[in-house]
């Protein structure tokens, strides 16, 4: 294939060799020459030299520029000597001292030759398939399954990383539960204002969460059982469980107060009154009587939340205990590897969950369970609730009612990308944004926009 050179490129070439003055020369016509590529010698250089000889006559007609042209020629000749090639015949070179070859500076290849066509290329996406699969867990039971729920919720079942539906379509979109408490808890203002009217009534609270805010499930925290608070007896506390089961027809998650001694009893009682409803008991931990909680789940047909403190090995251990020692079915375990808020350890939470999910997909059957996240923890971050930065020199933080929800959203989104299947959240706006985003990434919201180039020139 022959290389082509135009006169313009010739001038570009001269320019490279510091012959700038000749730029003023105008030669009409689209002059081109063709040469065969030389063996081992830069075709551009040969082109430049050959061109020079061809155009010598032409250039000479512009007598007043000849001096500069000669400079170029001299340079090219030195170059050609250095490279051991002959200048084309018939070119008059003004005599000058030959320069030793080793002093020649390296040649810069002319740069601005722009090809006419793109080099064709095919993008071949790298495929990933995992041998394992995350267990599918269903919460809630309808009448036909011995419960009273009108809907059930199924999570897990993934064969690829979260939202990597181009690898394998994952069967379930992650779900969101709203937290409800059996006594008035401490809440950030931006959250509290949405529940002000129901804070005293868990059943109404649950209704609002489902009907007004679109929660897929409700998490009822029986915090009044805490010996440091009201110390409500377990048998009395679980009456609220019955109220909430009456009030809403979505699946329930029941949590204790976090008290190691009392929670097993409270969760056992809750399991009993909710028999047949397939609730989730939150949670069994290594430092409390996990066996008792596990047994309660097994006996009354519930799911158990296996909660560890950001440690993949402890998570493995607790899951094994629940599977092997208690004999819980594989479809009845959900893990909570602990959620830390954006800015307050989210990196640890994210990586811990991501590692757990990848291990599960790679075939570790101690870890291939769906994950839950206490995303409400995001409200513990001062950026979410504090009026403004306490730090001197910080750019002002702006309105906190806008900061809080987005802190919860970003915490949740990040962990969704690590593989979380179920979120416990509180701010209705945060829940709505998370849902929308997860639906989009899962492909159930078709509606897109076409004018995706317009931001480049929009006037906002």
């Amino acid at each position, binding site marked *: 294939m022959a290389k082509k050179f135009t006169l313009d490129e010739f001038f570009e070439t001269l320019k490279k060799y510091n012959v700038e003055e000749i730029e003023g020369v105008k030669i009409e016509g689209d002059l081109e020459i063709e040469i065969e590529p030389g063996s081992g010698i830069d075709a551009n250089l040969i082109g430049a030299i050959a061109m020079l000889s061809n155009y010598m006559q032409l250039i000479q007609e512009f007598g007043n520029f000849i001096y500069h042209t000669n400079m170029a020629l001299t340079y090219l000749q030195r170059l050609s000597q250095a490279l051991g090639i002959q200048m084309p015949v018939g070119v008059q070179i003004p005599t000058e001292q030959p320069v030793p070859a080793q002093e020649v500076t390296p040649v810069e290849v002319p740069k601005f030759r*722009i090809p006419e066509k*793109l080099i064709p290329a095919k993008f071949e996406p790298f495929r990933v398939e995992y041998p394992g699969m995350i267990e599918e867990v269903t919460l809630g039971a309808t009448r036909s399954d011995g419960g009273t729920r009108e809907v059930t919720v199924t999570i897990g079942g993934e064969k690829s990383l979260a939202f990597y539906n181009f690898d394998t379509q994952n069967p379930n979109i992650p779900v969101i539960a709203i937290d409800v408490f059996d006594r008035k808890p401490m809440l950030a203002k931006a959250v509290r204002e949405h529940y002000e009217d129901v804070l005293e009534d868990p059943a109404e609270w649950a209704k609002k969460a489902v009907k007004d805010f679109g929660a897929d499930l409700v998490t009822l925290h029986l915090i009044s059982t805490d010996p440091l608070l009201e110390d409500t007896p377990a048998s009395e506390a679980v009456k609220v469980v019955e109220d909430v089961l009456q009030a809403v027809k979505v699946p329930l998650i029941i949590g204790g107060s976090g008290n190691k001694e009392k929670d097993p009893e409270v969760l056992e009682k809750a399991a009993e009154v909710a028999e047949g409803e397939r609730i989730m008991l939150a949670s069994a931990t290594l430092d409390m009587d996990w066996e008792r909680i596990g047994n309660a789940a097994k006996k009354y047909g519930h799911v158990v939340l296996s909660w560890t*403190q950001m440690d993949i090995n402890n998570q493995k251990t607790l899951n094994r205990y629940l599977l092997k020692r208690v004999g819980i079915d594989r479809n009845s375990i959900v893990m909570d590897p602990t959620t830390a808020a954006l800015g307050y350890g989210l990196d640890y939470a994210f990586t811990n969950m991501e590692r757990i999910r990848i291990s599960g997909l790679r075939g570790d059957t101690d870890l291939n369970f769906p994950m839950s996240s206490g995303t409400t923890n995001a409200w513990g971050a001062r950026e979410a609730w504090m009026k403004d930065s306490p*730090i001197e020199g910080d*750019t002002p933080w702006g309105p906190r009612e806008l900061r809080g929800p987005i802190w919860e959203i970003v915490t949740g989104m990040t962990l969704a990308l690590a593989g979380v299947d179920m979120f416990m959240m509180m701010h209705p706006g945060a829940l709505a944004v998370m849902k929308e985003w997860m639906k989009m990434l899962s492909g159930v919201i078709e509606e897109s926009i076409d004018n995706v180039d317009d931001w480049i020139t929009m006037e906002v």
Partner: protein
Amino acid sequence: MKVKSPLEVYKYLPQTNCGECGYDTCMSFAAQIIDRNVKPTDCPPLMENASKDKKFEKKLNELIALTSPEIAEVVIGSGESAVKIGGEDVLHRHELTFFNPPAFFFDVHDNMDEALIDERCSRVVEYRKFYVGDFITLEGISVRCVSNDPEKFRKVAKKVAEYGKPVVLISLNPDCMRAALEEIADQRPLIYAATEKNWREFLELALEFRVPVTIRSRDLDTLKSIAKTFRENGVSEIVLDPVTEPVGKGLKNTFERVIQLRRTAILGEDKEIAYPIMVTPISAWLIEGDDITRGYWETVIASTFVTKYADIMIFRNLEQYTVMPSVVLRYNIYTDPRTPVQVEPGLREINSPSPDDPVFITTNFALTYYTVESDLSSSNIKCWLLVLDTEGLGVEVSVAGGQFTAAKVKDLIQETGIEQKVNHKFLVIPGLAARLQGAIEDETGWTVLVGPMDSGRIKGWLEQQWPPKSGE
């Protein structure tokens, strides 16, 4: 990086343990190469040999090829404010670490009035968010050509460049781009963008002005084809924009394109697309809705792709409620998981305290420590701060996990000699460690006061509680 073990690197080293690199042995230098703390060119004998002998030079180049990052690095800007993007080696941070956080550029355009441009540029330049002992800042400013007038664009590009931050020039019109480049090319702006239509002109601009260039296409075959053409014609500083579609199925497809690009570059070893990726959260401003909705959605897009592989982003919103979560998330995801974020345990004197001033205790988790320390310092509270070795865990987790115990508090009190420095025996513990109050009192004999849940409230707390009433 193609190699995973120091042994594979060691083969290429002089194996003399001369120590000229600053490490005791060639093997430890090899380990540092694997961890990307040093480069093969940091070995003086290797460099010397290579300069003398073609055979050694070849070996050195092999080693460089084996140990260079999977994703090319691109530098935008010049001088001290220049920002490096790309250079990643892994798909998941726990496999090594992510290296260069995505650079954030904020939008101005050439139809904005001058005062607004100045205001926005100043906000970018002056942005500060205190986090883990330092201030997070923003990287640069992007300038869009909305007027389609080369002279106008030139003028605004010049103005913006004077702020000294790296710049992204945005126009699909080569004439406009040329005008701006004539003005500020020496500051190495990133130009945006070469497309299927204008690529010839943009290739010429990238070559002529020697600036990094963005290639934009939704079609990954086309994207690869343009990148390959640019590369083979001498442009190596390339950024890929697979086009950000802000909502719906478009967002799903964007997610797929970004992940496929990065995964194919790293696992599929496709060098022809192994470049930094651009994502444009500013695309959120194409959706219907008020500014808050669009600002929120801009953050949603940013968060998705901070976690998943974006190396550079263009933002519209400068409001803190969207900038702050984005910069903090970026910091979190790009924190090196190999090094625990801890500070030295011991005693810190805050604002030159006297023996009458209160004694606080916190953990050595860097985030906790710097938060408490800066709250105390910036509120001008004079106090003594004990820093307990909780193995880099925060208060809540270390109290639950047994790294924050009464016995360890007692040891710390003895080791630091705090008893001799103050004339009282009151210790303020974090609100989140309240349950240890009794145990610490029993163990140490000090009176333990439970402080607030958040150190930002210490000032108010002290007004009520300090000095402690005697006899309590």
